[in-house]
């Protein structure tokens, strides 16, 4: 398959319907292709039923669709087994479930390593765990280039370390994490590695086996799927050992007044009616992604990032957060315009159809490390093109006029 961003763009009804829209907020949420919308609508109009407990054909069909969705996730992650895939409502829920389940066996003094680059969703759950269980947090700082300072791993990962919870890529700087270094530091002390893949998943299929990590979390809505669904993948042997977090229908064995036994994973972690239609939609999104030519898409996304970085580097009132090169980064670029507040800037840009997010992007510790409160962020997906960058650059000029 050969790759043409304009052809891809036409597959997205929201973008196709508004040629003047320059959607550059993909790190917050990606748009939804027609194929996924069709899968959602088809499910609701032909296959809607509750799963797992029905033996009439409609319910059997819904259950099979739901379990097939698990298999699509397995393929996307190249996980060893589909029963390592837990459906959640999103990355945040996935990380919190893991923090509660894994945390249940921690003792006071056990250590968890996180980093300053984390999204609040992979930061605050560990602070809450610290309060709940008395575990200690060690926070890897940023290096001079704005990447996580992995040179400090050896020092941060002590014999008491039980877990490293780290992002695959920063949702602000776009910097990718060298997970091989993280995994080997963890292995050296017998610790586990949980990866926040919320950003990485949008940019192509993954390989959790090759990465060698123990758990991986991502959201449907950021990789061209529906809202309200996400994935917690956990290596089977670890997943089997974890206790349930939320309880309810579908995750029990036998329930009596005195005591209750729990179902095997993944059911044990899917209390209540799961997001069935959303899982089916996510599967459609992932299958769609699996069909795309990722080498070409990555090259295209990288070219866009490089062009924007170069343009911004040529403006003397712009400060970029983090790395300025495209090596080992996602096409996410955060910056500030001197003397202009990020929300004023995104307001003016939005006026011209250029959709950028301003604020702290749920990464206050990272912003604090850069000495700022907030930034504006342009994040590219496979359907963006040079016209989007043109519009952004024109928008910056307009903002300078309007806001100064």
């Amino acid at each position: 398959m050969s790759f043409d961003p304009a052809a891809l763009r036409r597959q997205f009804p929201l973008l196709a319907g508004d040629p003047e829209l320059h959607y550059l907020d993909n790190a917050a949420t990606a748009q939804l292709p027609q194929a996924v919308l069709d899968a959602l609508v088809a499910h609701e109009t032909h296959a809607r039923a509750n799963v797992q407990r029905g033996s009439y054909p409609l319910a059997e069909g819904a259950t099979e669709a739901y379990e097939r969705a698990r298999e699509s996730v397995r393929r996307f992650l190249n996980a060893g087994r589909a029963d390592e895939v837990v459906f959640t409502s999103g990355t945040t829920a996935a990380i919190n479930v893991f923090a509660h389940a894994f945390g249940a066996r921690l003792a006071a003094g056990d250590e968890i390593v996180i980093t300053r680059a984390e999204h609040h969703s992979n930061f605050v759950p560990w602070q809450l765990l610290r309060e709940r269980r008395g575990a200690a947090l060690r926070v890897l700082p940023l290096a001079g280039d704005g990447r996580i300072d992995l040179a400090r791993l050896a020092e941060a990962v002590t014999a008491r370390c039980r877990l490293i919870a780290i992002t695959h890529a920063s949702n602000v700087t776009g910097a990718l994490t060298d997970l091989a270094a993280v995994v080997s530091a963890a292995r050296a002390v017998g610790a586990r590695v949980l990866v926040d893949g919320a950003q990485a998943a949008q940019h192509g299929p993954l390989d959790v086996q090759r990465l060698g990590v123990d758990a991986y979390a991502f959201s449907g809505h950021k990789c061209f799927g529906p809202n309200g669904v996400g994935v917690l993948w956990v290596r089977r042997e670890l997943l089997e050992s974890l206790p349930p977090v939320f309880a309810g229908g579908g995750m029990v064995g036998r329930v009596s007044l005195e005591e209750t036994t729990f179902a095997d994973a993944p059911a044990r972690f899917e209390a209540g009616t799961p997001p069935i239609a959303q899982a089916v939609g996510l599967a459609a999104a992932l299958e769609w992604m699996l069909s795309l030519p990722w080498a070409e898409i990555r090259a295209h996304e990288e070219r866009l990032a490089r062009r924007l970085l170069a343009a911004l580097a040529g403006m003397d009132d712009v400060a970029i957060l983090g790395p300025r090169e495209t090596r080992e980064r996602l096409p996410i670029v955060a910056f500030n315009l001197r003397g202009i507040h990020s929300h004023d800037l995104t307001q003016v840009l939005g006026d011209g159809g250029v959709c950028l997010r301003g604020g702290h992007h749920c990464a206050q510790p990272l912003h604090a490390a850069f000495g700022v409160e907030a930034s504006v962020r342009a994040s590219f997906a496979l359907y963006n093109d040079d016209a989007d960058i043109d519009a952004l650059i024109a928008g910056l000029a307009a903002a300078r006029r309007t806001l100064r």
Partner: protein
Amino acid sequence: MSAKDLYHEAIKSLAAADTGHGRLEAPDGRATLDNPLCGDRVEMEAQLAQGRVAALAHRVKGCLLCRAAASVIGKRAPGASAEEIERLTADLTDMLERQRPPPAGWEELSAFAPVHAHRSRYGCVLLPFKALLAALRAARS
């Protein structure tokens, strides 16, 4: 695939025969397994001699498929080794999931071929086999 195909006479008479129903006086191992989806329960007891099933007995609260499967076990399992039961369970799973032929020597299991079309019922057929495996594990440890 209609329910009529599922509930043919062979299944019904297997279930009605309930071969192996009961209790053992002195089982070497026992196991109780639940199907969490429907509350079905299989209790299985076994005696081992030279690594082979010398005697077994089961009590099943379950559907026709589950009772019929337990009845096949009651008829065929005595004399089999734990390894044979393990292989057999894998073959049966393959038969259900991938329409493979029934395991050799256990021809009665071909009665379950139509279950292939009903993934939600695989567990009903497999539960007695899993209970037997668990009882054999218990007997050996």
